[in-house]
């Protein structure tokens, strides 16, 4: 038996899938993929396979799970245990999570709760509870316009690298709202998908994230004369990482470049070449390239057996839809993917930062009963912040 809150969540999802099964985006090559779902009040179920889109839709509508997933990988035997599946190739996917971006608003809306003494703190969880020393701590991550905006910026950076550096056509790049905390992007280029093995994906992820750049790549070499350096240092119009670093240091403030303010990238690099020793120079350049790179979650891109949330299904922690985005510029994560009903539900809210759904402002709430439309009630109940009153 599910508790009243979980069963209300399931009911809301179930009604949605019955009314809007057409919103579910059926993946290509369905018979070669593994499927999985996470039922409300249960544990993850994997290694399923479906022959037809009809079968799949019926299963989703019936189970109304809190999460529906499919494999990025294509297998000979998708329903077999992992060792016997036989990996053929896989979609190349990227995940950008607002939670990884360390936005300044994090401290305002993120909370943690000690499992033992129920002590609540702001921001990221500490290693152990400062009050009772317990290490079992529940983290609540929250996404607001600000942090999802930052995540969107990262997607723009990612699109830029994929197009300019990797030469992928824009029409083969599809962006999705993840349904809760960020964005997903998949590359639909059969040639790239087929060729990239796991190690190649690791390397590609490092490139995109700006990991591992050498000073020599930027033309910095202690054996060179001043003139030679001038020739080898990157300028803003260079392609690839040389140009990316050059543009970044021109467009961002660093105290290290104070003496060369308003000068071009070459002059700035010459300055630090003069003032920094090898190791600290290397570290500093790495810091710049990490900042100029994209904050992708590398484990998503490099785990070729990952199962990924299915587009057109609901996210159990928000009730929002993982949604294909046609116009990224205009996409509003608190309007477009809000697909549940407005029917009112009375809930008891333990705690909630203020939030907006479909343009309506809610909260902040603290230990109070509120009557909310289904959309907002599910948003809070999914996060464990509210219960059916």
């Amino acid at each position, binding site marked *: 038996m599910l508790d009243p809150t979980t069963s209300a969540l399931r009911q809301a999802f179930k009604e949605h899938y019955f009314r809007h099964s057409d919103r579910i985006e059926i993946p290509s090559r369905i018979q070669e993929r593994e499927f999985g779902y996470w039922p409300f009040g249960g544990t993850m179920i994997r290694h399923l396979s479906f022959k037809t889109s009809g079968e799949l839709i019926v299963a989703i509508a019936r189970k109304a799970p809190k999460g529906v997933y499919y494999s990025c990988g294509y297998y000979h035997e998708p329903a077999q245990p992992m060792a016997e599946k036989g990996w053929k190739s896989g979609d190349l996917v990227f995940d950008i999570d607002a939670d990884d971006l360390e936005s300044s608003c994090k401290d305002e809306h993120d909370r943690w709760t000690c499992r033992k003494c129920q002590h609540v703190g702001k921001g990221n969880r500490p290693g152990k509870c400062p009050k009772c020393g317990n290490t079992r701590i529940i983290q609540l991550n929250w996404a607001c316009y600000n942090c999802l905006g930052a995540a969107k910026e990262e997607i723009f950076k990612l699109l830029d690298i994929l197009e300019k550096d990797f030469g992928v056509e824009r029409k083969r790049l599809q962006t999705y709202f993840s349904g809760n905390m960020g964005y997903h992007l998949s590359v639909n280029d059969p040639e790239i998908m087929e060729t990239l093995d796991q190690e190649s994906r690791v390397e590609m992820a490092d490139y995109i994230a700006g990991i591992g750049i050498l000073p020599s790549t930027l033309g910095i070499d202690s054996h060179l004369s001043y003139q030679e350096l001038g020739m080898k240092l990157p300028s803003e119009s260079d392609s690839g990482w040389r140009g990316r670093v050059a543009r970044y240091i021109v467009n961002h403030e660093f105290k290290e470049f104070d003496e060369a303010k308003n000068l071009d990238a070459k002059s700035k690099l010459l300055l630090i070449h003069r003032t920094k020793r090898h190791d600290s120079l290397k570290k500093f350049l790495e810091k710049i390239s990490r900042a100029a790179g994209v904050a992708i979650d590398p*484990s998503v891109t490099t785990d070729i057996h990952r199962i990924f949330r299915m587009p057109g299904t609901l996210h159990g922690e928000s009730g929002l839809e993982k949604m294909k985005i046609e116009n990224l510029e205009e996409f509003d994560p608190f309007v477009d993917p809000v697909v549940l009903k407005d029917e009112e539900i009375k809930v008891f809210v333990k705690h909630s930062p203020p939030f907006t759904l479909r343009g309506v402002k809610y909260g902040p709430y603290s230990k109070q009963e509120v009557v909310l439309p289904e959309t907002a009630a599910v948003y809070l109940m999914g996060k464990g912040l509210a219960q059916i009153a």
Partner: protein
Amino acid sequence: MNIQLAEADLAKYPFLSQAGEQAKVYDLDITELGPDQYSLVAERAKERVVDTIRKRKVEANLDNPGVELLSFPLAMAIVKATKLEHLAFYFALAEALRVESLLVKEDNANLIADVFQNVAKVKLIKTYDDEKTSFAINFAEYLKRATQFHEPEWNLINRPVSNGLVYLAKHHLVRLIRAETQRMIYQRLKSLTITKIPPQLEAFAQEIALKNPPPPKVEDIISISPERYPPCVKHALDMLKNGQDPPHFARFLMTTYLLNIGKSVDDVITLFPRAADFNERITRYQVEHLAGLKGGKVKYSVPSCKTVVSHSFCFRDNIYCPRITNPIWYGRTSPVVKKVKKNA
């Protein structure tokens, strides 16, 4: 990608000739060549095998291009006749090193490009740019090959990349050719079927086989006690012991390490706490799949030290860590005793 090569070039790169033509040479005998020529070819073929064993490298000998060319397939036949897997591996490497040493001296960029396209079967673009970017290939094809090299200059981020192409200097291309050549010769040896080789060479092959028995398998000699685990793996284990939650990567590192030193899936699973919320925790399923695919098409090897460093999970010591590039080698090299002086 058919190319016409002069005999002198074919002698240098004998694997470029048509496979069909080569096949004829495997059962080459005195009647076809004449005794003098035949014995020169046979001697050179033997020398190639002996060089492989003694020096792990075949020295080029271009005095007689015909002999150099014909002795290559004959040497392959000898290696095959020994039935030694490891000799096949070293022969492929030794021949690839010979090719590399010739290409390093080669000035003809067109020839280098042709050799690459022939062994790698990948489209190559000559840019006529400056020497650092003379060649370009598709990035995915590059990655497929370059991930085996561990020097940071091979990392994609340290190569010029634009519009789907990765730019390479001559020395990169030569290094790629070496790897491709090795792979190709090894593959050809594996698929080679030879019914008979001349009796004199058969005797030689048997002698080689007797003197060079296969080495013991790595799996048989590995057994490492926990004190000998690398610092990064130890740290992950300590975190678990202290009830902390190691990051996903640390779990991956530790799991692949333990599986690779021969621990069973059950051994590894007992290390993890029971709770299993699917995204963060390595469950039995995850451990099994890391283990189950070992040796299969998709291999989960232990991430390199470089990768560990980039995930900020390296806790290197000054004893074994300085000599290794992958945690799996920890404690298997001789320790560093003196402090190495670094030039700043």
